């Protein structure tokens, strides 16, 4: 994981014990970690050091963590990972809609945390489309120039909305896409609370992808995050 070592991490967490343990662990894995215990000092740290990734606890003593998310998003696309308590789906969705990239649920294990941070840093490079204008995830390939989709080499017929939905999801593999974000991107901003459209279309899309795939499992790349949205599973890069 050469690309992530040496990365600068800003950790915003008010519980000193948790903060200390995360710092020690990330430090041992080659990250440079700056700490903040509230939104005010986190803002200062962001202004002066511009980290590569931000780990943000939402319940901070002086303000809600989403204030920081909005501030950062005014200037930069720096990946933000939210550390959130269980049973707070609405908080997670709010933070993700404000511009956070992903979340882990407390209590989490350190290996899981490192895996998420690594994934965010890898994706920070840019869109997944290659020079030929096609996006490929697993056995599914979209030729954006020709608006064609193939599964294991077999072309499939998609309606315009199904195509838009698949394209929007596949262009950001690994990224957690909230229902609101997908609805706005595919249907327009008037539809951002019409989640049933999204679930019905994803369900149709899955059937079409599976029907064209010899193993019948092509749709497993669309991973549901119950109550939040969808994520395209990152396929392990082929061994070199």
């Amino acid at each position: 994981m050469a690309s992530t070592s040496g990365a600068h991490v800003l950790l915003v967490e008010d519980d000193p014990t948790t903060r200390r343990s995360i710092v020690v662990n990330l430090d041992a894995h080659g990250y440079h970690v700056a700490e903040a215990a509230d939104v005010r000092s986190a803002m200062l740290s962001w202004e002066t050091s511009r980290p590569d990734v931000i780990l943000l606890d939402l319940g901070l003593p002086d303000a809600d963590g989403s204030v920081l998310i909005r501030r950062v998003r005014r200037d930069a696309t720096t990946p933000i990972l939210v550390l959130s308590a269980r049973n707070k789906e609405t908080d997670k969705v709010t933070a993700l809609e404000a511009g956070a990239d992903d979340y882990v649920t407390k209590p989490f294990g350190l290996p899981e945390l490192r895996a998420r941070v690594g994934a965010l840093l890898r994706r920070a490079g840019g869109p997944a489309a290659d020079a030929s204008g096609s996006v490929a995830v697993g056995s599914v390939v979209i030729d954006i120039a020709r608006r064609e989709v193939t599964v294991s080499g077999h072309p499939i017929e998609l309606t315009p909305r199904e195509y838009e939905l698949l394209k929007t999801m596949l262009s950001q593999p690994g990224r957690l896409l909230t229902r609101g974000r997908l609805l706005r991107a595919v249907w327009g901003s008037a539809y951002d609370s019409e989640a049933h459209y999204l679930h019905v279309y994803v369900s149709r899309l899955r059937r079409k992808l599976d029907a064209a795939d010899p193993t019948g499992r092509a749709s497993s790349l669309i991973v549901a995050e119950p109550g939040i949205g969808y994520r395209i599973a990152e396929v392990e890069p082929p061994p070199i």
Partner: protein
Amino acid sequence: MPALLARFLTYARPSRPSNVTVGLGLGSIVIATLLAAVLESETQVPDASGVYLVAVAIVGSVGGTWPAVATALASFLAYDVLFIEPRFSVLIVEPTDWLNLALFLVIAVAVGRLAALGRERAAEANRRAREATDLFDVSRLLATADSTADVAAQIVEKLGHEARLERVWIDLEGAPRERPLADTGTGPRPSPTVVSTLARMPGDEPARWVRAHDPLVRRGPAPHGGGDHDAIRVRIETGGTVYGSIWAIRATGTGPPDPEATRLVSLAADQLALALRRDRLRQEATSVEVARRSDALKSALLDSVSHDLRTPLASIRVTAGNLADPTMALSSDAVREAAETIDTEAQRLDRLVTSVLDLSRIESGALEPDLQVYDLRELVDAATARLRTTLGDRPVTVDLPDDLPLVRVDAVLLDAVLANLLENIGRHTPPGTPLEIRAAPSERGRITLTIEDSGPGVADMHLARLFDKFYRVGGPAEGARRGMGIGLSVVRGMVEALGGTATARRSQRGGLTIELRLPIAPEPPPEANG
């Protein structure tokens, strides 16, 4: 004779006769006159006045007493003028004619009254029958309804129709003001200037209407044309408790309701009072039961918490104590093993705390499902993928048909349900036990999601209570390390919050089968514009 006449005249108070009755009276006199003329001239009958009696009897049975009396008087005059010498004059010369004519009048009036009485009795019987039917309908509505509120709208509708009232509503007693239960009308209530309240009398005395200017209505211009209406009010009370009132509006100047309407409304008020009392008693019984069960829940929860939550805590403290002890010379492998123990125990604590929190949310009714349309396959895949580690090497077969309808659930709750069930399998079945998840549409509007394992299963005697709170198969001693017995009660609570049901039965492979019945989503919208 005048006394008798006066007596039955008071019985039948005159009302304005209809045009039909007047026409019938006149027509029958003309026909009777013609018949009498023919009879007296052609057949030499000396006195054909009996024909008029037929006319009086017909008018009496159709029109009632007063038209009959009028017809009798008219017949008397007609016979006098047309048939008694000297003709075409009211004068009577012969004393026998005097006698005949006087007798004729008395007989005519008596015949008319008798005919009318028959008619009145029939009408009265009809009214009584109708009143009995109405009351029966009201009692049946109240007796079959779970709650009075469910049928109050039908009752006011019926009262308005049968007692001929313009608008009827029921208000329930409450502080600071009465609250509406049902209303035949819509919009703001008219503010009547005069309110007649029905005063019930003890014993057999009939109830009386007591008129009063409504003290609640301010003088001055009535806001909603209230001046056009008078209101009546009947209190709904029984055993000294007032539950509310039936109110009704009548056009001004129509006076208090007639005795039939009064009887109907007041008996309906009595029935309502009994039904409202029944509702209140039932409500009190339920809240007592809820309080009792909640106490039982608290003590059971405390028992479980003190044991099951402390066990992992004790293990964590002991292990951490070893790590912190400077005199212990631990190898790096031993340190790692200690850390893994702490991590495992902490995860166990996390699961327990989550279950307790879920249970308390269910118990307090704080679950507010966000029902959305979902593909069941998606939720099953997400849960099985997340619990892969818990399930270990147990092979999982997921068999969901391609044309399975979409379900309408809260994804977070259903995910927690599936996680609980899969964790349960991970805890109670030996490694390598195969499990199968399948789904199929069952009864109308439902999908049955089946989670079946081939593990040791649960004895039939335990199946019925498997979803009960704190119920542990094998009892507390044996189940001490098998969780608090709340996982499945959380499953049931959550599935019920989703509008579904959860049941357990013995699997054909010998293991445990859990069946969740979940509501199917309405048909997806047509693919307009792709």
